[in-house]
């Protein structure tokens, strides 16, 4: 099972990454872009968390009662905790800017706002 699907996680990571990136580039709606950006970032979380898994391991919370317990790698988890925070911070700031754009232009479509800028 592992042999066949050992890379499946990575492929899903790639697919999610692409879906997010496509949304960010191809959509003109600013809220949709932010959602796409969040998806794009969370795909990377999947990449990191996939590499932390050890076959037969458990979450890295040390247990004295089970000698010889295998633990999964804690470091990628720490990194991703930080990355999740970065993601939500970017989302919050981006959405506040979208709100202001809507107030200033009356639209949240990128091309319409750009057209108004040119005029």
């Amino acid at each position, binding site marked *: 099972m592992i042999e066949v699907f050992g890379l499946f996680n990575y492929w899903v990571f790639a697919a999610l*990454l692409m879906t997010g*990136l496509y949304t*960010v580039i191809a959509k003109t709606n*600013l809220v949709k*872009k932010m959602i796409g*950006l969040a998806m*794009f*970032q969370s795909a*990377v979380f999947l*990449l*990191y968390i996939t*590499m932390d898994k050890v076959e037969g391991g458990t979450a890295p919370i040390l247990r004295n009662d089970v000698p010889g317990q295998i633990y999964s790698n804690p*470091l*990628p988890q720490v*990194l991703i905790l*930080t*990355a999740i925070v*970065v993601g939500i*911070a*970017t989302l919050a*700031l*981006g959405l506040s*800017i*979208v709100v*202001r*754009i809507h107030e*200033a*232009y009356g639209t949240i479509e*990128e091309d319409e*706002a*750009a057209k108004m*800028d040119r005029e």
Partner: protein
Amino acid sequence: MSGLTHLPILAVVVPLLTAPLVALLRDRTLAWIAAVAASLCTLAVAITLVGALESVEYLAYPLGSWPAPYGIELRVDAFSALLLLIVTGASSAGLLIARDSLVGEVGSERQHLYLTAWLLAVAGLAGIVVSGDAFNIFVFLEVSSLATYVLIAGGPRRPALTAVFNYLIMGTIGATFYLIGVGLIYMMTGTLNLADMEQRISGVTELKPILVAGGFITIGLALKAAIFPLHAWLPGAYTHAPHAATVFIAACSTKVALYVLLRFDFFIFQGNLPDHEAQFRVFALPLAVVAMLVASALAIFERRNLKRMLAYSSIAHVGYIVFGAALATQTGLTAGILHMFNHALAKGTLFLAAASIGLGGAAVTFERLAGAGRRMPITTAAFVVGGLGLIGIPGTAGFVGKWYLVVGAAELGPAGVLMVVPLLVSSVLAVLYVWRAIEVAYFGSPDSARSSAPAVRAEAPLPMLAVLIVAAAANLWFGFLPSMPLTLAERAAEVLLTEPDQHK
């Protein structure tokens, strides 16, 4: 000695600690004084670091006293020190004029928040350049990016909002690409410490993920650094940001991204990937050449907004820096790194002058520039000095960098001599756009000004003028006596080009 050991972290902690305090200060003046003090302290730290680095190759600082690959390590060498100098210098100059310049751009009831964001940007950029850990660089990259978005979003006109949204999207994509690259390298080496990574990467036999990581990191940072085809966010962001913030951002933010790019490409990949030099040259040189030519041409065709013209010129100058780096020789890298410093000086001066011209929150259009030579002679004179530096006239700092670029290219033999041509063409283009601005400033007379405003002296307030004069003087000073940045740049190039096994 104990004070000296803590120097690397002080560059980050001072602005980081002051930022929450500034947020709590409601008073505009008090907040400004605290911010300026913090920025100047950080500048002092940077200068002390440069002094301390004369005797040692690098200063390492293990955070929390944990040994290097397990804990996070700060590592300051000549390259980082030079960048730290640029960041803190630009920030101090921008903050010193911010009190006068922000009036009419950022309402006084939210200026303390603005200054908080400013300090966070300083801390983020400083954190990037002193860090010796790949993931830590990402964290501080995000601190600086988010803070920079806030700085740009403070612009008084609504295009600032769309500009900053574009920047936010592109910047986040860039940072996430970087994160993917770091993840792939971590996957294959099991470490995040840069020095450790350099050692361990040579043991990796399956190179595909490393190659791809190289691609992701290069593209991601190229987005942040506005290397030519990925520069779309830059003109809008520079044009619509508040004037004081433009001084700061234009002088250092792309350069810090370039710093990380060079650090990765030369420190990590150089010597570990087969034919890295040749590949880097093949990819980066054409981009650099196109950037120099196209962006300069775009600057010529920008006939409305002075800041936008200068922004295009910045893209061209990123091209110069990449050009130097892409030569991948000692002279080339020295030239590229030196040009970071010199371009920061010249662009800083120009944007400082633009801030004076646009005082009160007006857009710096060519119409507004018209007749500035009579109204504000000192400002315009400083603008001319900065412009000459941009062109690379002998006697200004800009000349030294370009001279080394030419020498570095010529060293490569006949093909290199051919590459001098775009350098010269781009400089001629620079003459054209700088001259046009100067012409408008001295000889232009705006329609509106003819009727209403007579040619009275109307210089900017004294603090702004003083900063501007110091900046212009620095352009000339480092033009005649370039030894300080030159030595640092040479040593930085040496560090970058040293093969991993020769470090220890």
